[in-house]
């Protein structure tokens, strides 16, 4: 079988590009250095389309589509930036800030946070949506790591890396809508978890200060999610 990959031709922001038929708009765009902001996406993990920051306009579609889970198609005309898209993205970002208690100045991830960098990147200076100020727990029962739900954006990177890469399935999501929370095992304290291997992958992929290592806060809290693609390449090589 010499399956020649199917090539699709589409335009992104007026530029004609080619992409493999199994690629998403996000993959095709990034391959051609077109910048689309993302938060839940992480190289090396499956896509869930949870954060909605990668919304793009596709001609003929009645609503904006998340670029990370929309496959390219022949003749597709994609717009990645215009006033409407920018307004939606800023609004989504504001919702993240308003939903929980992201107090950047006293956060362990201040200066190393993807949510914070996104606000700079998208030019958000303040939040118009009223802050919710929910009362949320902090679980520091694990000897090395802490989960602070005040900072969680429910991107589910921790859930995916734990399941897809570590294979431990410690992390999950419970509840619905605004009541959703990431949990360890059956909502047991992280320190009591029987499945957690303490590998720390969830901490490295967390975009905010929701998951952090107790010994590295502030300027030392830089995270290293870049191990993922390498790990996957190595594992691919081991397959028979």
């Amino acid at each position, binding site marked *: 079988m010499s399956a020649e990959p199917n090539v699709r031709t589409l335009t992104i922001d007026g530029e004609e590009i080619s992409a493999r038929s199994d690629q998403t708009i996000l993959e095709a765009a990034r391959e051609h250095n077109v910048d689309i902001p993302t938060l839940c996406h992480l190289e090396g993990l499956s896509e869930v389309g949870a954060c909605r920051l990668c919304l793009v306009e596709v001609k003929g579609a009645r609503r904006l589509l998340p670029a990370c889970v929309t496959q390219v198609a022949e003749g597709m005309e994609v717009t990645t930036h215009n006033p409407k898209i920018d307004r939606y993205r800023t609004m989504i970002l504001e919702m993240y800030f308003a939903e929980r208690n992201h107090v*950047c*100045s006293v956060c362990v991830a201040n200066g190393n946070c993807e949510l914070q960098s996104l606000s700079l990147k998208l030019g958000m200076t303040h939040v118009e949506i009223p802050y919710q100020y929910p009362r949320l727990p902090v679980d520091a029962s694990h000897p090395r790591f802490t989960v602070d739900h005040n900072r969680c954006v429910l991107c589910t990177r921790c859930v995916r890396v734990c399941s897809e890469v570590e294979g431990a399935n410690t992390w999950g999501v419970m509840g619905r809508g605004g009541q959703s929370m990431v949990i360890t095992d059956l909502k047991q304290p992280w320190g009591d978890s029987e499945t957690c291997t303490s590998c720390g992958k969830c901490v490295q992929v967390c975009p905010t200060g929701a998951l952090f290592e107790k010994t590295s806060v502030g300027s030392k809290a830089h995270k290293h999610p870049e191990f993922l693609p390498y790990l996957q390449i190595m594992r691919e090589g081991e397959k028979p």
Partner: protein
Amino acid sequence: MSELTTLATVWLDGCSGCHMSLLDMDERLIELSSQFRLVYSPLVDRKTFPDHVDVTLVEGAVASEDDLKKIRKIREHTHILVSLGDCALTGNVSAMRNTFGVQPVMLRVYEQNADLQKQVPTVGVPALLDRVRPVHEVVPVDVFVPGCPPSADTIYQVLSELLAGKVPTLGGVAHFG
């Protein structure tokens, strides 16, 4: 003198860090002082807010009845109102009490954790609002300057642009924290 742009700075519920950052402009303050006249501020002695101020920088969130009264008056008498720093913009640390409510916080501070004269102060201090709020939730704001505190460079940029007759936008320049 009267042709100089008038500037006021106010300090609501914040730590004064934004005012420190303002002073951190160092020698650039001298340059700016030839173009601004500081008419009301914790740094000068005037007791009442003037009838008309061109630019007012607000540090801090709106946390008490007194803050609320002040900010409404300031808005009324200010041409361009600048929210300076995260407390004014987001509530920041000041607003961390919002998840608990006023009464439990007061009891915690003045009774449970006090050794002497356990009592919640009521005389000579303004009543706290149920919720600490960002300035723009209470009155319209013209310029938003994020940062805890905003850097001296950022404040200098804001003041310079205002003097040049522009309304600065800090999008892509400064962020929270």
